[in-house]
């Protein structure tokens, strides 16, 4: 009798310790992306574009060629890469400030062009890196360091639903919104991430997975409770599910 490993960190992570706060979902999603890269056998041809945000170091955490785009511009950087290297697999990893505020134009146009890239979108309803300011995805009434009285619709408008917005674009081949606050969701999310990569690999178009995520530090809620807060507050605002799937099921 001997022990056989059932669950172990993926090869496509570099092994460097993550710089994220305790309990931050960025780490879970990193691991899922790396597992998918392992399973698809694409590590040696994957090019990663990290954003500006807490995941600015993501390019260090993956064992693939990587760079950091200017804040919000990862989809444009990825477009340039993919057009230069169509045989490679290119993905961006972006926060909600990065993708849904400063980089709204770039993500929309990359998706609309059906750019054959994959985007992992971490929606934690806040600007993590800069200390908890309001994001376009911040919930109504939610207090942040720049909405100290709570976000109001009159002054700041409404939480921006990127998945719904992009789902209308014909260039999108796979699009889903998910969460990783429970083990079952983590497994579901991995399948979605895989499909978002397959959308690119099979030449079908743009793929994106929006992951509702916690920011325990700037929410001011400890990790375990933050998982519950996400369930109770973010999920009702941001409906989960598959919005576009032109990939189909694995054979």
């Amino acid at each position, binding site marked *: 009798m001997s022990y056989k490993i059932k669950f172990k960190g993926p090869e496509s992570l570099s092994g460097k310790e993550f710089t994220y706060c305790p309990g931050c979902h960025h780490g879970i999603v990193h691991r899922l992306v790396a597992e998918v890269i392992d399973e698809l056998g694409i590590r040696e041809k994957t090019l990663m574009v990290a954003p500006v945000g807490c995941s600015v170091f993501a390019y260090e955490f993956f064992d693939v*060629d*990587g760079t950091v785009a200017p804040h919000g511009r990862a989809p444009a950087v990825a*477009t*340039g890469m993919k057009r*230069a290297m169509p045989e490679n697999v290119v993905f961006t990893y972006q926060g909600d400030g990065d993708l849904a505020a400063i980089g709204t134009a770039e993500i929309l146009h990359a998706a609309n062009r059906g750019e054959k890239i994959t985007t992992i979108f971490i929606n934690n309803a806040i600007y993590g890196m800069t200390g908890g300011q309001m994001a376009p995805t911040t919930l109504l009434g939610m207090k942040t360091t720049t909405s100290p009285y709570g976000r109001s619709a009159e002054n700041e408008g409404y939480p921006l639903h990127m998945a719904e917005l992009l789902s209308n674009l014909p260039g999108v081949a796979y699009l889903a919104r998910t969460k990783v606050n429970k083990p079952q969701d983590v497994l579901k999310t991995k399948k979605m991430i895989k499909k978002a990569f397959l959308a690119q690999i099979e030449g079908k178009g743009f793929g994106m997975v929006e992951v509702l995520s916690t920011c325990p530090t700037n929410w001011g809620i400890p990790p375990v409770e933050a998982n519950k807060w996400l369930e109770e507050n973010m999920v009702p605002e941001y409906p989960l599910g598959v919005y576009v799937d032109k990939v189909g099921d694995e054979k």
Partner: protein
Amino acid sequence: MAEKVMVKGTEAIGEAAIRAGCRLYFGYPITPQSELTEYMSRRMPQVDGVFLQAESEVAAVNMLYGAASTGHRVMTSTSSPGYSLMQEGVSYIAGAELPVVFVNVVRGGPGLGDIQPAQSDYFQATKGGGHGDYRLVVYGPESLQEAVELTAKAFDVADKYRNPALILADGMLGQMMEPVEFPEFRDLSTLPDHSSWAMQGAKGREPHKITSFDINEYVLEQMNLRYQEKYKKIIENEQMWEEYKTDDADIIIVAYGTMGRIAKTIVNMAREKGVKAGLFRPITLWPYPYEALAKLADQAKLFFTVEMSMGQMVEDVKLAVNGKKTVEFYGRTGGVVPTPNEVLAKLMELI
């Protein structure tokens, strides 16, 4: 030798880029360079290249960043407001040490300005533009033939130093028709090999990481010092200028680009009046040929800088002359091109 063909300025630069091995172009329309973007949209598919009209100059410059990180020759062209919009990306590209060729067909400014030729983006081109301690190699061609040659050179220099380069043209150059002799098509297999650093997939090697940052200030300082070492080499090796009738000149007109070309006429008009004028025409605006210009300070009585701006390069002329002789200035701005007669009149006033 290839024969001369009549071409329009913007198209000459586009064709020169393609012949230099550029197969990726990302751009956004803006007068007076839209013809170059249009030309690339026609030509790139013919040479199996990529043309993509970006959603903005912000997107375009970042597409360049991405494509250049893979080690390919890439280019964009724009005009003043568009180049302003690109500055964050230019700074990232300089910091990440990516070879990219930019073309700024300068128009009147500030703000929306107008679409007439100008030289009022000199500070932006040569002294920064974006944030941080960085430099672009900047070329100021006076003719289409020179623009063609400098475009090819810009790609080579960008590759050699892993540094962005900029062709600073103006609407006059962009719109003129002139006979040009193009170089042969560069055999793509002879282009510099960037596989030692480029993002092409970590197959059988450690992953390549391309960034313009480090959160440790001492490491970032070291990165900056490394850039400075590179800039020093560029200063040593890459200065270009033209001297026209300076041998016996005691009046040195200093002008670049379109204005430099017009200044040759002014030199000859002055000489007809018995004034021994000559022209010093910087071709690289960075690195600026300070020493070559300084050498003329012993023989000259007066330096006279002429620009299509309210006086930007004149500061470099003063740096070069270093108080040894008087440096005078004449310029028109907002897209107005000084005529030889008005510049000559001003010169005659000065002496």
